[in-house]
């Protein structure tokens, strides 16, 4: 336990001093990794901890981004309202989609969510006058203090840290244990007197909200939104981060995000076959690494400790 907190503090310290020592591009990359890590972690709350087949999580990321971007570009409201509106839009759609999909069993929940999500994508894609269509919206202004790479990096670090802390608390709360019970055995939870639909809906709202927060952060870091943010291949990408890192672990998805974002940044620029690489990674993980990388690291560390003991 003590060890874990030492590791966390070390990582946090490194993250704080990072912009002072590395070039601007890496600061930007780290910002993207941080917000994507939050995105993957928020998906994991639904799929890993509650067993809900949230197959189109990118929708909430996109909605958070578009919500923020539209308030900034179309209204004169202050910035902080834009930063709040994004996640709220994501939550509202989580609620609507959730209420519709919850009528179905697990499998069909996922199918319908993909379909409804694609509808939202299609509307955003076609609604030129409002959303900018397939171009999206670029050059979105943000307040001066977070306009440069360092500024938006610290803003991202701050928001992501708080969000991750909240999510961590939720997972280890009675509510968090309850949703894990729902995942493991829904029938049993019902006969314990737990209303599983209400719990699941709340999980969807939480996942949607923090997905939206990640989208809002993307606007701050990249000053742009575009429909690809909410295309289904991006949902697949987030799913892969979760699975690659480790679905039933808290930090796994973050590790997955680090790996996938880094790979995409370097490979995505030299090949046009990034989706195929993603697909192959996914297939590899399914067959050879179903527990995810985090479990691998954990076992390795434990094994070392064990060896040292004996």
């Amino acid at each position: 336990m003590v060890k874990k907190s030492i590791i966390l503090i070390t990582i946090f310290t490194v993250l704080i001093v990072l912009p002072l020592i590395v070039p601007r591009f890496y600061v930007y990359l780290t910002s993207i990794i941080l917000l994507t890590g939050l995105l993957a972690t928020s998906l994991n709350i639904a799929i890993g901890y509650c067993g809900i087949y949230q197959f189109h999580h990118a929708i909430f990321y996109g909605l958070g981004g578009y919500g923020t971007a539209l308030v900034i570009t179309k209204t004169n409201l202050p910035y902080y309202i834009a930063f709040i509106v994004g996640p709220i839009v994501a939550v509202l759609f989580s609620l609507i989609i959730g209420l519709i999909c919850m009528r179905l069993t697990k499998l069909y929940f996922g199918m319908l969510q993909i379909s409804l999500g694609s509808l939202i994508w299609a509307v955003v894609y076609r609604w030129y006058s409002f959303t900018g269509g397939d171009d999206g919206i670029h050059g979105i202004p943000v307040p001066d203090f977070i306009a440069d790479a360092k500024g938006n990096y610290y803003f991202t670090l701050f928001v992501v840290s708080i969000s991750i802390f909240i999510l961590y608390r939720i997972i280890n709360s009675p509510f968090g244990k309850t949703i894990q019970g729902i995942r493991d055995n829904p029938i049993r939870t019902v006969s314990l007197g737990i209303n599983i639909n209400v719990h699941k809906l709340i999980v969807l709202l939480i996942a949607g909200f923090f997905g939206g927060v990640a989208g809002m952060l993307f606007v701050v870091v990249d000053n742009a939104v575009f429909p690809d943010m909410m295309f289904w291949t991006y949902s697949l990408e987030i799913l892969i981060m979760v699975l690659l890192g480790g679905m039933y672990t808290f930090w796994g998805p973050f590790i997955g995000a680090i790996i996938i974002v880094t790979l995409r940044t370097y490979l995505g620029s030299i090949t046009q076959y990034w989706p195929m690489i993603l697909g192959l990674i996914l297939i590899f993980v399914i067959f050879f690494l179903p527990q995810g990388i985090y479990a691998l690291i954990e076992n390795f560390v434990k094994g070392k400790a064990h060896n040292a003991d004996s």
Partner: protein
Amino acid sequence: MLTVKDLYRDFKGFMAVNGANLEVTKGEIVAVIGPNGAGKTTLFNLITGHLKPTAGIVQFKGEDITGLAPYKICRKGISRSFQIVNIFSKLTVFENVQLALFSKYSKTFRMFSKASKYFIDETNSILEKLGLLEKKDLNSELLSHGDQKVLEIAIALASSPDLLILDEPTAGMAPRETERCIELIKKLSKEYGLTILFCEHDMKIVFNIADRIMVMVRGTTIIQGRPEEVRCNELVQKAYLGDIC
């Protein structure tokens, strides 16, 4: 305490429960027996709200609970274990029982406090009663089959029910585990005054621990009475027991 009157359940023309009657009074151990496919599990599902009856009445403590949602029935004080192992496999033994307590004290919506601080003593005392205390930090999927069944009873017990319903509690257990489980049921009844309703196919167990027995054949109640009465009832012998008497 529990009264089931003329209960029917129809599955697309097949009457799984076809006129079941049952009476459980406080403090008793009541067994439901009957050949495979007699509708015992269906009857339990009807009582606990997992299925809705086609006709008939289920009364609990004088209140009509027919067709209520399972979680509502649970809150009225009926708790059950299942025939197949039905635990939260990725949680620890401790957390399994604790989860039931969250529900009992309506804490399942607490999001920002540490789960591990809740109900430590109460959880431990339940685990101790059932002899699972040493294994409390184990992941429950790593328990032996017998221990998993006991853990199920522990979960059911945690909501401190007035009536505990056990669906084939010893199914798939090794003989020694079975013995332990029987002792456990007796102890729960005697020392903690629990009312227990269970079904079982092992006759020896039934006649050993039940105060009263209800016999079901093809969904219909044939008789409910004390073990001696049931043992010597002609209909029962014909339908089920063969030549035990």
